[in-house]
């Protein structure tokens, strides 16, 4: 048990930890609190019976989100686009990650560099040309072209992550299968794929989060509310002429945050190790 100056340092450290946790999580509490208030309470302002924990709570904002703001369709739109983008990403990135890690291709360094640079590409610069392209093809205000655009978010990081992951699987596993007479593809299917499942799973979670979270492409290519994705829908919630319905906006925010927060909490260890493993060796 440390004493004296060391004890004070320990105390300060844990205090800092608490402060950091508070800064990270308190805003979510505030959103939750605001989402459970009525329109009148929001208009009243914070204080008195409307303090940190309001005396009256109601779930009306959540109900309004689905009845008056029609939040269900955007949620479905987001889910469709994110799931398809994730599926494509997983197939493509697993193939590429495996090839880059295991198979001796020429220019694998350059290919990997290209993939990473594509991940840094300014997304805003893509908006104009893609808008023109989709307009030509009458694909504006359509959620499916978004999937293609989202691949620029998901492919680089998924490929990089899976490549690192495959690079860490010992080569002996495959060698053993190959020595036993299997072809490369057979070895892949029977030996590598089962071992790769955790890495693929992590990559899928990251891809889903990145696709789900997009706002830039959605706000550029979608025009009517029934085609909006969830992030876009939320932003347009509060644009009523008379009142900003913070309780409804925040209820929508809570609805969106819960699956993401659960995914992260569930997979945080995997996500961190996936992103960092082998990066700086």
């Amino acid at each position, binding site marked *: 048990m440390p004493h004296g100056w060391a004890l004070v340092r320990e105390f300060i450290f844990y205090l800092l*930890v608490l402060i950091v946790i508070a800064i990270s999580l308190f805003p979510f509490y*505030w959103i939750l609190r605001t989402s459970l208030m009525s329109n009148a309470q929001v208009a009243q302002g*914070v204080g008195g019976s409307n303090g940190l924990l309001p005396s009256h709570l109601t779930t009306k904002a959540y109900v309004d989100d689905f009845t008056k703001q029609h939040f269900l369709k955007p949620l479905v739109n987001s889910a469709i686009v994110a799931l398809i983008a994730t599926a494509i990403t997983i197939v493509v990135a697993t193939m590429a990650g495996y090839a880059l890690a295991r198979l001796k291709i020429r220019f694998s360094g350059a290919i990997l560099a290209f993939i990473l640079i594509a991940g840094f590409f300014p997304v805003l610069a*893509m*908006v104009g040309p893609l808008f023109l392209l989709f307009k030509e093809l009458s694909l504006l205000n359509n959620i499916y072209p978004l999937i293609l*655009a989202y691949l620029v978010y998901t492919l680089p990081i998924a490929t990089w992550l899976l490549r690192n992951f495959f690079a860490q699987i010992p080569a002996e596993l495959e060698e053993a299968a190959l020595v036993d007479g299997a072809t490369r593809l057979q070895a892949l299917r029977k030996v590598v794929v089962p071992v790769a499942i955790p890495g693929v799973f992590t990559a899928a979670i990251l891809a889903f989060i990145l696709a789900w979270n997009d*706002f830039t492409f959605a706000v550029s290519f979608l025009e009517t509310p029934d085609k909006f994705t969830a992030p876009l829908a939320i932003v347009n919630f509060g644009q009523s002429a008379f009142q900003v319905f913070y309780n409804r*906006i925040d209820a929508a*925010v809570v609805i969106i945050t819960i699956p993401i927060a659960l995914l992260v909490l569930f997979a945080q260890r995997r996500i961190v190790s996936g992103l960092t493993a082998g990066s700086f*060796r």
Partner: protein
Amino acid sequence: MSTQATALGRLARRRPKRQMGRERADRRLGYLLVAPVVILLLLITAYPLAYNLWNSFHAVNLSIATGGHPFVGVKNYTKMFGSSEWVSALLRTAGFTAVSIFLETVAALGLALMLHRKFPGRGFLRAAVLVPWAVPTVVSATLWKTMFDQRAGFVDYMLGNLHLPGAHTTWLAGIWTSWAAVFVADAWKNVPFMAIILLAGLQVIPTEVYEAARIDGASAWQAFRRMTLPLLKPALAVALIFRTLQAFLVFDVIYIMTGGGPGVSTQTLAFLNWQTFLIGTDFGYGGAISMMLVLISLAIAAVYVRALRPET
């Protein structure tokens, strides 16, 4: 990498026929497996880039009903460099980027050091700070917009109760205060990501390094500055490249929190670009702005790769 160069390499390449056959088959399979990702990424990056380049030398405005898109040489570029709107946006964006990465790097370093230490509850801390990073920018921007709102927000409430300056302000209506709000929303979401990268860098530094420094009598601060920081260069480079580019290209937060306002005081380069494309429908001028955006991004990345090259 150049096994051809060494004698050992030459020896290594004299391999049995069956293995050479397999390697060739492997290579073919490899190209096949890598093809989809390369093709897809080329499609969504190289194609828009080329299109922008072409557009930037032509007049392409959907609101002007001329016939076709005539070649205009560098007119879009001279317009851009001469426009006070573009120059102001550039300066604003540069300022925001500089302040933001300085403050965020310091915070991320502190957070990384915290997470590096083994203590009970470390997992909870890590999970807690990752959630802000994982939520969409819509959430973080909307969340902080609520927090800074005079009537619905916590910031005013807290400042008022603690009788601190800044209470009873409409944060998003003031020139500097709106930047402050944008910065808070941005930092809250992005410091955790930087911290994770720096943490990865910290984790590969062997502990012997610290012990050696301590034995030599160095204080914790000196050990950090002379031994840890230099060894952290690769991780710092990666974290800084990410953050600098993201800060320079900031768009979502601006659109959602301030819409570029009040007036144009938070109009960043990326936001100006977007407005030119989608509101001005000027894809020629917008193309020029985009090309500059890409060039500056490349320059930033190049600077970092050079400056923070790890010593061999």
